[in-house]
């Protein structure tokens, strides 16, 4: 349809790793509380490596796609690699984002960093406020 890259279309229509990791080592949430884009990550971390990760997301189509994409990218990676992810890299991994979709790359990088920080600080975010439900 032109508005979305093939990668975004793929993850949007076929999300990978949705849900929550049971007994997660860490939970990270970022997003706009008044029903903007929101991503919750839950992950299992062992020896500094993300061994399992799942997402929950609410928001625009691209935000759902990058949340799914993020789980695939992060799984099996060391926390230092995850901390090094930035918005530009997410845009690249997503196969490109249009100007009005670009904000979701920042969101994805933010939630990835927050996951690493939360893990290091031993804190967890709450579940998001339920939106539209």
């Amino acid at each position, binding site marked *: 349809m032109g508005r979305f890259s093939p990668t975004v279309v793929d993850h949007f229509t076929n999300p990978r790793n949705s849900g929550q990791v049971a007994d997660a080592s860490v939970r990270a949430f970022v997003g706009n509380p008044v029903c903007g884009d929101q991503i919750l990550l839950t992950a299992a971390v062992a020896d500094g490596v993300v061994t399992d990760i799942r997402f929950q997301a609410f928001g*625009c189509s691209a935000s759902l796609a990058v949340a799914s994409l993020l789980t695939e990218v992060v799984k099996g990676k060391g926390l230092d690699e995850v901390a090094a992810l930035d918005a530009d890299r997410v845009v690249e991994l997503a196969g490109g984002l249009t100007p009005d979709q670009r904000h979701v790359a920042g969101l994805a990088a933010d939630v990835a960093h927050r996951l690493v920080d939360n893990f290091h600080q031993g804190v967890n975010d709450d579940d998001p406020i339920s939106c*539209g*439900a």
Partner: protein
Amino acid sequence: MMTRSAAGPDPAEIYLDHAATTPVAPEAVAALGRGVALHGNPSSRHSAGQAAREAVDGARAAVARLLGCAHDGVVFTGGGSEAINLALLGTFAAAEWRGHLVTTRIEHAAVLGAAGAAATHGVAVTVVPPDPSGHVDPERIAEAIRPDTLLVSVMHANNETGAIQPVERITEIAHAAGALVHVDAVQTAGKLPIAPLRADLVSVSAHKFGGVKGVGALRVPAGHELTALIHGGGQESGYRAGTENVPGILAMAAAAEVAVTASADPVVRAHREHLRARLLAGLAELDGIRVHVDSRVMAETVSVAFPGVRGDTLADLLDLRGVHVSTGSACHAGSESPSHVLTAMGVPADLARSTARFSFGSTTTEQAVVAAAEVTVDSVRGLRRSWGATPAAVAVGAG
């Protein structure tokens, strides 16, 4: 740049956005071709010009039947928005911007935009809210009318929710108070009878009933004082200057004839109701959905909130799966703010944002509707799964 268009519509596409615009009827395509072949200017005195003039006159007669007025009561415009702006701004300009306008919070942007422009010229404007049902209470209009009320503008049916407004009762009240009435019949023309409307001014847009985009018409009663928006060569009885859009006008007339005949057919009406019932039955598989307006509503327009998903995201997913629906009005497509119509009805912002509109046209089949419902159910479930939300059942509104 036009890869899709060259290939024509995708046969797998299920188009349920007829309230935004509907495909051009075959009869209208043929009329458009006849209009293109008429190479004269209707204002030219030679026979090429006169042939174009006669064709426009014939089209005017057909559109007069749609609008329920005399031939010379039809003013062709460059679209529904122009017809509406001409009705409102033309009426107040002729009154030297004196007087009061009553309209409603659920009107189309064209009415609200024209009302805003009238206000900058000094016109007093009262904007009446609807009931939570999505309908404007005629009593609220009666309360809003003042001695200096010149015009009341109310839509025949709302484009987002399909709610049919009590325009006949409102017209009675306005007329009794000495005010004129404009009805925005853009959504109902060719679907509900508009010829019997007793309103003074009635606006329609061709592309909503099988004509082409960029052509509209306004019913103007004899003796009505109206100042043109577009001044010049005196076409359209001086109400709209400019060489007439001959092909578009002919296509509009052809589409009007087809649509008026079809919509008067009880079988067609029953089919549309059946489509609505089938869609709602299919969607009922989902927990917690809310149909915004489900009584005194056009069969063709189904506005549903799907708590736990965002309407725009659902529309995107459906699009990728070949089903075209909208989040509300087409103009809203890009905007972040929730629908002004649903907001005015008191629908909470998050529920408004979780809304999708399904709308039917003359080409919509039962099969398509059933398939669309299935894809929607599946898509909503998928999106809710991504979100992890288990939406509480939401009470269906008073609609």
